[in-house]
């Protein structure tokens, strides 16, 4: 799966979660860019991502993903292990 | 775009210049009369700013005034006694009014008397006592207050080591605070108003606040507002006095006032401050009149023990002065003669009291209290009340509003079947 494909999957998960079809994620998107993406929805998003890809992030990493790109890369790293 | 270095230069130069201007203005206007800067017509002749800093302002004033007579008391003294009144005998002049408005306590009277004596030259002291202050025990503040640090002496008469620092502090804060600046500016801005509140160099204050309020709200509202306040206070006092045994509180402070005056050979007149019938009735109806009589008796005994060195004047009675009518609600024109409201007498009444105590040919108002006169005086006041209140001769606000609950003795009736 390419990074672009993962990004598309993340976009779908978040759109479903927030009920907003207009969301478009890019590698440099940060949480503040999406109005409804608060800390609560963030956790749901992370768990949904974990379920989708069958991985588990470390809590410290969850806290410090600087942007969507970092999540995409972390998925890659986790699946590569 | 700007340049940070020139920003910082401009900032510091502006800040320093403005600060210098503020200090200069405050020194020139001297809103609290701390420095004694000469008063300049159109700039600082009248001083309204001392209103909320009276103890500060007056403690600096009295040191410059070199009075022969000092008048001590609360806000009613501050406002109602004119230190420059023509009734003062020549031998007693100059007089300084050291009455302190706001947050008053009898212990402040002791300290201000000590201070007036410490600055030198005082031969006579007239100390006004508010009866309400003898029903609530005063507890000395823990630690030294700012005012304690300012006086020349400590309470036991020794030189006060804290004074220099406190004076420096007072001067700094009178020069370099927002409050001082605002008071300076409003002092200058207000000079055009001839009725501006003014603290004269002799400690007397004009009655501007009362004049303004009377004009805006009418005398009725001023009495009614203060009645409401006194009613609350009297209720509080009644609770304290309900279980009080023995001598009334704070008489030891009066004993200290007497001791201080005698120690320094100062002729002392103690004065029980007059109150309007509205206030008297409020305390009467709270069952406190026996306590008022107890206070008079205990003060009389205290003074009698001095063998004539101290006099005690009693103006707290149901005389025609104290029971003048209160104008009706809505009437903003009719003035009163003797009282601004139930606890603050007007300067006219103050002058009558000065004449009564130190002059001759005065109207029959108040009386000297001695062990020989007190019983008759108490009875006379009760009789005056019976005729003025119970027989509805005086149009008091409290009498009108609480008619029927006045506690008057029932009219004499022929004995018969009930």
């Amino acid at each position, binding site marked *: 799966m390419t990074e672009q494909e993962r990004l598309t999957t993340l976009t779908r998960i978040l759109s479903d979660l927030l009920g907003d079809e207009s969301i478009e994620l890019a590698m440099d998107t940060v949480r503040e860019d999406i109005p409804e993406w608060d800390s*609560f929805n963030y956790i*749901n998003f992370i768990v949904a991502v974990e379920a989708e890809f069958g991985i588990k992030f470390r809590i410290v990493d969850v806290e410090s993903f600087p942007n969507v790109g970092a999540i995409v890369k972390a998925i890659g790293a986790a699946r590569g292990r | 775009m700007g340049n940070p270095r020139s920003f910082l230069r401009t900032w510091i130069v502006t800040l320093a210049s403005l600060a210098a201007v503020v200090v200069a203005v405050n020194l020139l206007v001297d809103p609290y009369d701390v420095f004694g800067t000469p008063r300049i017509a159109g700039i600082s002749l009248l001083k309204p700013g001392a209103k909320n800093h009276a103890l500060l302002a007056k403690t600096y004033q009295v040191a410059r005034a070199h009075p022969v007579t000092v008048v001590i008391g609360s806000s009613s003294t501050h406002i109602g006694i004119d230190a420059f009144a023509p009734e003062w005998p020549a031998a007693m002049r100059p007089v300084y009014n050291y009455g302190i408005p706001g947050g008053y306590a009898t212990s402040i009277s002791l300290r201000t008397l000590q201070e007036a004596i410490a600055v030198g030259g005082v031969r006579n002291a007239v100390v006004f006592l508010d009866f309400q202050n003898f029903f609530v025990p005063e507890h000395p503040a823990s630690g030294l207050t700012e005012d304690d640090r300012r006086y020349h002496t400590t309470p036991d008469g020794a030189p006060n080591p804290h004074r220099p620092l406190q004076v420096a502090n007072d001067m700094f804060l009178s020069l370099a605070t927002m409050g001082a600046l605002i008071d300076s500016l409003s002092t200058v801005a207000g000079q055009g108003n001839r009725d501006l509140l003014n603290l004269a160099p002799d400690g007397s204050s004009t009655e501007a606040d009362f004049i303004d309020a009377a004009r805006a709200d009418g005398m009725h509202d001023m009495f009614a507002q203060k009645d409401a306040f006194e009613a609350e206070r009297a209720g509080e006092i009644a609770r304290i006095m309900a279980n009080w045994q023995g001598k009334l509180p704070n008489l030891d402070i009066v004993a200290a006032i007497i001791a201080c005056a005698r120690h320094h050979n100062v002729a002392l007149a103690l004065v029980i401050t007059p109150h309007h019938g509205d206030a008297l009735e409020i305390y009467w109806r709270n069952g406190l009149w026996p306590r008022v009589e107890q206070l008079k008796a205990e003060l009389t005994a205290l003074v009698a023990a001095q063998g004539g060195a101290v006099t005690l004047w009693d103006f707290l009675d149901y005389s025609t002065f104290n029971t003048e009518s209160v104008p009706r609600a809505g009437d903003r024109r009719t003035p009163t003669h003797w009282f601004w409201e139930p606890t603050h007498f007007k300067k006219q009444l103050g002058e009558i009291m000065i004449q009564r105590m130190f002059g001759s040919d005065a109207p029959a108002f108040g009386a000297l209290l001695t062990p020989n006169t007190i019983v008759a005086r108490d009875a006379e006041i009760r009789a005056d009340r019976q005729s003025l209140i119970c027989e509805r001769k005086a149009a008091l606000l409290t009498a009108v509003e609480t008619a029927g609950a006045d506690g008057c003795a029932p009219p004499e009736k022929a004995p018969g079947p009930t």
Partner: protein
Amino acid sequence: MLFNSYTFIFGFLPVALAGFYALGARRREWALLWLTAVSLVFYAWWRPVNVLLIAPSILVNYGLARALEQTSEARPALARAILVAGIIFNLCFLGYFKYLNFIEGALNDTFGAGFVLTQLILPLGISFITFQKIAFLVDVHGGRVSRFSLADYGLFVLFFPQLIAGPIVHYREMMPQFRAAPGRFDAENVAVGLSLFFFGLAKKLVLADPLGPLVAPLYGQAAAGVPQSMTEAWIAALGFTLQIYFDFSGYSDMALGLGRFFGIKLPVNFNSPLKATSIIDFWLRWHVSLTRFLTAYIYNPLTLNLTRRRMAKGKPIFGGRSPNIGAFVNLLAMPTMLTMLVSGIWHGAGYTYILWGALHGVLLCINHAWRLARPRIWPDTKAYRRKMVPVGFVLTFVSVVAAMVLFRAPSPSAALLLWKGMVGAYGVRLPQAVFSRLGVVAGWLTSIGVQPAWTSGSLLLATTLRIVSLLAIALLLPNTLQMLAAFEPAIGVKPAKTPPRLLHGLTWMPDRVWAVGLACVALAGILSLGELSEFLYWQF
């Protein structure tokens, strides 16, 4: 030492800066050591014994952090045990000083346990320091912090601009800045720092502090069980809200400014919270660094674990468009309430703070529930936003103001009394003087049940004017972060893409006009540092 004192502004700060710049010109390490040393002096100033309390705690934490660093890779179980021990140590330290009395008192209240309450010395800023230390240990354990010395750690904990009242900072955002700090006088940093500091000083002293004596008697009366009419109750609620608002806003600005003098940017802590249009929005603007801390170290780990567990059991979680009550209660309401209770207790040892936290927790749950349910009830998001944002603002404002009563009231019963007053349970009273001046309107007021009272008309007028003008400042003007956005006043602050309209004339620049304006602001602040004690003689 308080920031708003002559000693700090004219004594401590110039000395601290002069030493820092002078040493920094030679070696940065010396400048940083100097900064640690003056921070310790700052901390010790009020009560030197504080140093004896904080120094051992720093050493213990440093030791624990070192141990964590060495074990986290090799022996994860041991590392975990050390981390737990460290957290417990810090919480006990905080608990002993801040909560022992409260807990004993509560036990006395509940069970009649005969604890004798002793007044402990509360070390200054202990709540902030404790949270930072815990965060540090967690970060070391998680491998987010590496390469630290005792000097680094000491400076991180003690850095005086944020020492006693926040913002709560993370090691990883501070240390790189300390390591890169120029350590030299930099005109732009000083200009930005001065501006922030004196804006803050003026906010606290000129805007916030005068409200204190106005509202204090109202809370005092409520505590004594005296009911307040609607007028007084709202003055108490609004007055205190604005007092704490400008106090906190001013304090946060001062902290940002002081950090900037040393070339250090602190995180955003206060971002016009009264402009919030929802309670969630409020917590993203009010005490931001605390919200960030609680989210990162309590809420997120908790929900992450709960969500994973629930998923493993095959129960529904959030996601998709079918919110489920069980998921809502377990994954949202419960962690939210728990986090807000911690927040409440953290603010102070008292029932009122716990209730305040609980109330905000409930409000947040309602807000979240509405967010989940709204798209089904009202699917047109654009129309919803357009119509409901003003409603959201009003609801949030009223909720926040009402909750603030709990924060200030001496007891829950006093707060309850004021709330009843706010909804009119004790009528509406206005001073007689107001009635006398209103003519016809007075009759109309009487007919709707407004009663005259012998309270001060001029005091009411002055208080109302003050509250209205402060509300206007808080709600209409841009904040300092927006005004100085071009100079990154706090970590990550950038100019908005679409700046608010009022910002046009208020964009800060290091030019002459701003220098003169800020000199006036600074003077107003400095002139308000002290005041002659006065007796307010409210005769009329």
